């Protein structure tokens, strides 16, 4: 089987996430010197254009969220759509409440299960270790439609009514792989002799876990938790399949707004959500590289 043996590609894939680059000091100086003189190049131009491409649609939406009129013809500055968003959109805010409940509960469970599992997998050898590693990788790469449809069919096959519980289960499932991978990447940098020292000094397993390992990998756990929250808040496709009456989340509500007649309230909401995203990204700025590698 492909996953056995010392050259386990999965292990390699994981270790690649956290590996430092093998650049030696002089090489890095050379690199820096090379950087400064080559400013306008094809690659820099493409990069700039791509960033513009990524941001322009968002900028247009943000600008027109301050438009007085409904359409895309500029008629004057107004905060009317924001007023409507904050004072006159009860359904939207109750769906946001649902989103928050699900995001926090599923991220908590996913972070707890994923962190424990990654410690177990990194630290011990046991039956089904390879199974757990492989299985935790798959939900991350399968298209969302497949995960959503399979869960929908599963829940109706076992007669579980669709609602908040099913959304919670689905969100925990698709957040788990990211928690597992991000904490595992952090554990790879962890000096395990500390654990041996703790054991030698008479710490019990539980003491070692909560007083040594968890504090040491806390940054990894926190970024995994925040990553889960963002993914849960943002997910539409999977939620769409496993939601029932009364469990509308914010993305589902936004979908109905996009699909059935566009109200500029959604533009105002876009700006608020972009600001929220920026706040989270700013908070996670130290982990941006890890996140880039685990995506």
């Amino acid at each position, binding site marked *: 089987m492909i996953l056995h043996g010392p050259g386990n590609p999965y292990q390699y894939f994981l270790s690649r996430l956290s590996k430092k680059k093998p650049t030696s000091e002089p090489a890095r100086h050379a690199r820096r010197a090379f950087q400064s003189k080559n400013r306008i190049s094809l690659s820099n131009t493409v990069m700039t254009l791509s960033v513009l491409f990524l941001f322009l649609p968002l900028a247009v939406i943000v600008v027109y969220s301050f438009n007085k009129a409904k359409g895309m013809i500029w008629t004057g500055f107004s905060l009317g759509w924001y007023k409507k968003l904050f004072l006159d959109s009860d359904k939207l805010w109750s769906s946001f409440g649902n989103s928050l409940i699900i995001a926090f509960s599923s991220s908590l469970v996913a972070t707890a299960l994923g962190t424990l599992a990654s410690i177990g997998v990194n630290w011990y050898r046991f039956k089904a270790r390879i199974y757990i590693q492989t299985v935790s990788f798959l939900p991350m790469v399968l298209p969302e439609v497949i995960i959503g449809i399979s869960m929908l069919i599963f829940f109706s096959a076992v007669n579980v009514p669709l609602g908040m519980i099913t959304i919670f289960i689905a969100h925990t499932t698709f957040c788990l792989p990211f928690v597992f991978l991000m904490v595992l990447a952090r554990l790879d940098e962890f000096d395990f002799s500390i654990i041996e020292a703790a054991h030698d000094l008479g710490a019990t397993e539980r003491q070692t876990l909560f007083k040594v390992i968890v504090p040491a990998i806390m940054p990894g756990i926190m970024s995994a938790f925040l990553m889960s929250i963002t993914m849960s808040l943002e997910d539409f496709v999977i939620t769409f399949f496993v939601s029932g009456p009364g469990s509308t989340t914010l993305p589902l509500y936004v979908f109905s707004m996009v699909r059935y007649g566009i109200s500029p309230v959604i533009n105002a909401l876009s700006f608020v959500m*972009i600001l929220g995203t920026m706040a989270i990204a700013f908070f996670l700025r130290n982990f941006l590289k890890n996140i880039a*590698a685990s*995506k």
Partner: protein
Amino acid sequence: MSRQRTLAGRNYGPIYSYPMGIWFSLFFILPIAIIVTYSFMKKGLHGGVEWEPTINAYRQMFTSSYGKLFLRTIFVTFTATILSIVIALPCGYAMARSRHQTILLFLVIIPFWTNSLIRINAWIAILGNEGFINETLKRFGMITEGLPLLYTQRAVILVLVYMYLPYAILPIFTAMDKFDFSLLEAARDLGATKPQSMFKVLLPNVRSGIVTAIIFTFIPIFGAYTVPLLVGGKDSYMIGNVIVDQVTKIRNWPLASAFSMVITVVSTVGVLWMMGTSAREAARMKSAGVKQESGV
């Protein structure tokens, strides 16, 4: 690397890891297993299935009525993936060599984390009949009637590239960031032209990053649902849309399961390819890296 540590005398691995293993078995493996089973069952009258093994669903899937759907899905997926990779390669290179990496990462990750529906909505507002582009062109008198930009296949490809470009940039950036760029100068010093140094030195060294980028864009685009639904017309449906229609409207679960099997198998093959590339690279680095490591 194998770690065998049971210092405390007990193996706590199962206690730590089985909860997640059980969770995945229940809520991921079991649902997929049900889909596999259902794809070989007879369609029930009102949704669901009858327990009668048959390959009707697969036979139905490969009839001519779905041929066009397959071709369109493959065309759109390949075009969008190739475009994303072609744009992402210079981007990843520029980011890896930039002194402002964190800011650039920030700029790529913000749109990537912004809600997908918000981003799709932005494109609808831009491309629509009374959207930003058409209204702007009208204002400057360049056109009198709105151009049909939205609800076309081109719009679907454009928005798919927009949505999945960060998925392509990030792995390529990560791979390039680990590349020792002084090798490029060495290649130039040894007489290689700039394109030669790029194609013969840089690209082979970041191969696994490129493969990861291809897989991370190809698989979600292949299973795309929202983008074709919202910015495409009725004739830009992709497999994902047909699966959803079969489950929710037509209620032919075996056919939906069979289509899902196609996407699952294609995705799994892609992932195995990606893992294989990583493994080969690991083996190569192992044989080449012995000297390097002993020097540190």
